């Protein structure tokens, strides 16, 4: 046991060091790919709170990215509030919207909930387009400020470290969350709502808070995403593809586990970006086909995701989740 612990910590330390020195020897393109993988990993981990641990299959998380991105960007461009502060406001706005989705989850089950969240995200997109005065409508908002105090950096390497820190924070949060009283309560509700209620868990409160936490984190991710692309517009930020990609990454990696989001993102994001870079110019769409195939194959062949498979096969432990 002691040996395994040491072995594990050595591997983790090596991986951490490799990740930290990666931008020093890799080219900008590779750095950018890994950076985006971290961002999506964080978003997938945020989704995991309600989607994996809570078992509420949301397909509307792009709405929270958008609410976060718009909140901090409007604060930045109209009031000069730095996104380092604005991201907390972004989280709160997204979290409040998440609480609404949590209320919906009390009435809607399974696919009904999923479809409701899709409609919710579409509604958010339409409202962002409609209220042109605040959001810039279809033209969006260009971020004109620059400098690290505004979370705007010159090189991809800086963003790399930002996303890395974000991803690590997400990972540590989930590790804490899954053993917290609240997290255990949420999992109990996922497994059997009536039984959870029976042992004194407040289903109503837990579901709403769970959805709010998930949306809060996603909103912060939205701010950071906006700061990275310097530009937000409803049709490029509230995409259904984003909602589904977040869920797909987590499910492929292993939903309801701290590492699922990271594993899924490290596989799917580089795959799609790399294929896009190779084939994008020639055959638009080829990268997406492989993406679709990977999604299909993993969901059909590997229930529990890749982390679940790894745990079963190599670590010989019982499958968690499901």
């Amino acid at each position, binding site marked *: 046991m002691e040996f395994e612990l040491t072995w594990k910590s050595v591997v983790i330390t090596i991986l951490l060091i490799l990740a930290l020195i990666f931008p020093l020897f890799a080219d900008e393109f590779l750095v950018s790919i890994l950076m985006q993988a971290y961002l999506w990993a964080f978003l997938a981990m945020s989704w995991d709170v309600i989607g994996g641990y809570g078992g509420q299959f949301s397909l509307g998380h792009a709405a929270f990215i958008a609410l976060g991105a718009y909140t901090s960007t409007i604060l930045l461009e109209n009031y000069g509030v730095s996104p380092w502060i604005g991201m907390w406001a972004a989280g709160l706005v997204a979290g409040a919207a998440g609480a609404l989705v949590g209320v919906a989850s009390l009435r809607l089950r*399974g696919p009904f909930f999923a479809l409701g969240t899709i409609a919710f995200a579409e509604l958010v997109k339409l409202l962002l387009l409609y209220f042109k005065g605040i959001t810039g409508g279809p033209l969006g908002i260009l971020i004109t400020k620059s400098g690290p105090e505004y979370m705007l950096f010159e090189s991809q390497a800086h963003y790399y470290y930002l996303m890395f820190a974000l991803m690590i924070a997400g990972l540590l949060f989930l590790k804490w969350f899954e053993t917290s009283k609240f997290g255990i309560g949420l999992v109990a509700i996922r497994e059997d709502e009536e039984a959870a209620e029976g042992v004194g868990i407040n289903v109503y409160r837990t579901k709403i808070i769970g959805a709010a936490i998930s949306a809060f984190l996603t909103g912060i991710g939205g701010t950071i995403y906006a700061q990275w692309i310097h530009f937000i517009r409803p049709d490029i930020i509230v995409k259904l593809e984003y909602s589904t990609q977040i869920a797909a990454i987590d499910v492929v990696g292993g939903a309801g586990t701290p590492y699922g989001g990271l594993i899924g993102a490290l596989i799917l994001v580089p795959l799609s970006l790399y294929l896009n870079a190779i084939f994008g110019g020639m055959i638009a769409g080829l990268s997406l086909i492989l993406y679709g195939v990977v999604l299909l194959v993993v969901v059909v062949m590997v229930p529990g995701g890749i982390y679940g498979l790894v745990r079963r096969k190599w670590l010989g432990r019982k499958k968690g989740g499901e």
Partner: protein
Amino acid sequence: MVEFSAYTQLLVSYAILGGVYGLTALGLSLIWGVMKAVNWAHGDFLMVGMYTAFWTVTLFGIDPYIAAIVAFILLGLLGMVTHVIAIEPVVEKPGGHEATLLTTLGISVILESLALILWSPSPRSFQNVYKSTYIEVFGIRTSVAEAIAFTVSIVAIVAVDQFLKRVRLGKAIRAVSQNPVGARVVGIDVPRIRLMTFGLGVALAGMAGVLVATFYPNIRPLAGYVWDIASYVVVIFAGLGTIYGVIFAGIIIGVTEGLGTIVFSNAFRQILVYVVFLTVLLLRPQGLFGKALRRV
């Protein structure tokens, strides 16, 4: 008076569109009713139906309504293949309903990308006499293509209902939908029924695609998306698993869109639809015409 008739014209156009929404939603509703699967690629099958119309009409110069039969058969087969790959392996597992959402999402991505590679993103359309001929009833003008699309939608919905009530296979489909375990006990081959139902649902989407293509100017790889959302709105509105509900719900959604355009603005139209949709979903999750919802 001029304004009034213009409004009536608009509402009728949207009601007709709503009827076609009903047909697109019918396949989804069937698939849901029988196997509780969410077919996220439904709009993409519709898109393939549109291209089937485009190619059969432009390559062979035959009537678009014969293309509807071609699409029905072709998409029926494609639906069965999809079922074997994406639905049957997961549908009975725990969490299978959500899994079908993801596997069909994979299918959706694959279909859209293939269409992009094969047919490029630029929109196409084909000329047909039905689109350019108009009929006028009580001062309301509509193209023959739209009138036929609406009529065929209603006929198809009645036909599916009769099929489910009278034909042996249809009865078996109903049995599986009502009680899969009981159906298996009395000797119904449940996986086979699921396969047939999925094939039928997709075939109906293909047919709807052809009907849409006869009057809709934009045949493009991502065209399914709009219809996808519309069909889901209709299906939930009607109550998943209802047959006649979809046509009423389709028309209601169509008219709501029309009213939204008149009272507010074109931009507000869709907002109104989603607000109505979410309200119905939250207040009456079983849909307007559905019976009490079984817990999923």
